[in-house]
């Protein structure tokens, strides 16, 4: 048993402030445990999302000492515990209450993406190597930490013209599917605002599933967009040989 100090945002989008708490903790606890203990002993109405407590559902995203992380996967041991630990809600989304934010925008973006559209004459056989890439993308647990840290959303608030790393990952998984037939490149270039990404890789750095978002999803998509819309040689080649 030892005691730690926490500074947690309390309030709503209208008004709120950081409140300090002192809490007894034990060996091996994660930040989410500390929040639970706070709820049980001091502040039962402290709002925070969580579900699996094992880094598999992506509910308990927050900013711990300024870094976007999952609370259930952040051990107190790994933080400087002799100093006050700051826990804030995700900055990119509107605050609902305390640590819970309104992430509904993400669900709206997802709806706009053309769903999986298998080729009509598809054969449902393929090799593991065809799907290794996609399986990496499908590890995504939708914690939205990448959306939170991406400065295009976080700082520049381009929510209306930019889909964010999470959905580039999703679209990469669809685009690279061996039998998907839909074309999402025009959408990627315009509505999804792929060009706003300046590949500064913060999304990759915060991804709790270690998906190489920038290198494996975003840049390959950027290259596909260049093939289609920018590279004069490729465009000419397609025109000459009528390849789509």
């Amino acid at each position: 048993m030892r005691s730690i100090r926490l500074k947690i945002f309390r309030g709503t989008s209208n008004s709120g402030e950081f409140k300090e708490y002192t809490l007894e903790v034990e060996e091996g606890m994660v930040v989410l445990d500390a929040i639970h203990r706070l709820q049980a002993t001091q502040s039962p109405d402290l709002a925070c999302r969580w579900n699996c407590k094992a880094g598999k559902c992506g509910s308990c995203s927050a900013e711990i000492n300024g870094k976007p992380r999952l609370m259930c996967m952040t051990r107190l041991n790994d933080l400087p515990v002799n100093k006050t630990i700051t826990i804030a809600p995700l900055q990119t989304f509107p605050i609902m209450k305390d640590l819970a934010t309104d992430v509904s925008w993400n669900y709206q973006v997802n709806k706009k993406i053309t769903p999986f559209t298998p080729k009509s004459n598809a054969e449902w056989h393929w090799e593991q190597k065809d799907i290794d890439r996609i399986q990496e993308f499908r590890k995504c647990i939708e914690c939205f930490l990448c959306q939170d840290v991406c400065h295009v959303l976080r700082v520049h608030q381009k929510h209306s013209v930019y889909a964010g790393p999470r959905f580039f990952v999703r679209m990469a998984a669809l685009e690279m599917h061996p039998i998907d037939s839909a074309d999402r490149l025009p959408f990627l270039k315009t509505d999804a605002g792929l060009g706003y990404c300046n590949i500064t890789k913060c999304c990759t750095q915060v991804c709790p599933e270690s998906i190489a978002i920038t290198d494996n999803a975003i840049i390959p998509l950027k290259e596909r967009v260049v093939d289609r819309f920018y590279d004069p040689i490729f465009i000419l080649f397609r025109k000459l040989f009528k390849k789509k």
Partner: protein
Amino acid sequence: MSNNSLGATARRDLWWLEPAGTFAVLVLFIAYAAWVGLSGTHYEWGPYLSPFYSPLFKPTWWPFSPAILVLIVPLGFRTTCYFYRRVYYRAFFMDPPACAVGEARKHYEGETKLLVFQNFHRFFVYLAVVFLVFFVIDDIHAMMWPINGILPNGQMAPGPKTFGIGLGTIIMVLDLIFLSFYTFGCHFLRHLVGGSLDCFSCSKTKETRHGIWKIISKLNEHHMAWGWISLGWVTFTDLYIRLCSMGIIHDVRIF
């Protein structure tokens, strides 16, 4: 509660160290490259040629340093490279300076407007691959030593040549290797050889392309490391040859 002025963050770590460090290193490199590029001297010693001046192209109508004519390729290649873009967007444009740290800029267009030219990275890649061939030729030259030795002014003595290796040869060959690892780990090449395919097992050709794609993917994972190493080494290579040429140090003939 969001505060987006430059540097605003709740982070406690030394987040500014990385952008500040990169800034310093890149500024030093740019200054050195500019000085070297504009100097037009001391880029050759014996069989060695500085990579900054390769391929050596000295038309009579060109009054300036010959490096200016060729440096555009490696500079363009690195400037439009996805890895360097990340680096200088952070360190120079502070867009963002570090993850979850506020920025100064209010207006942001990303790579949609002015920076859309980044999409032409691939043309620099083609040229950079061609340049690798020049470097191979340079390295072969660096193994051809005049039987009569090197003159005090660094020129090769006239007469027949023979195979030989100096410390500079090794430095140049390493430079070629590092540059190749960097160049062939390129995101565009990865896309070109296989990344653009959706199905790898669908034909024999595609199977082969998948094989190459996997190799490039491996290199690509360390694209950043090779980017830095090759940058440092190319500078060192030039410096070594320059110092030999200036007579400050003396090359060691190994073989």
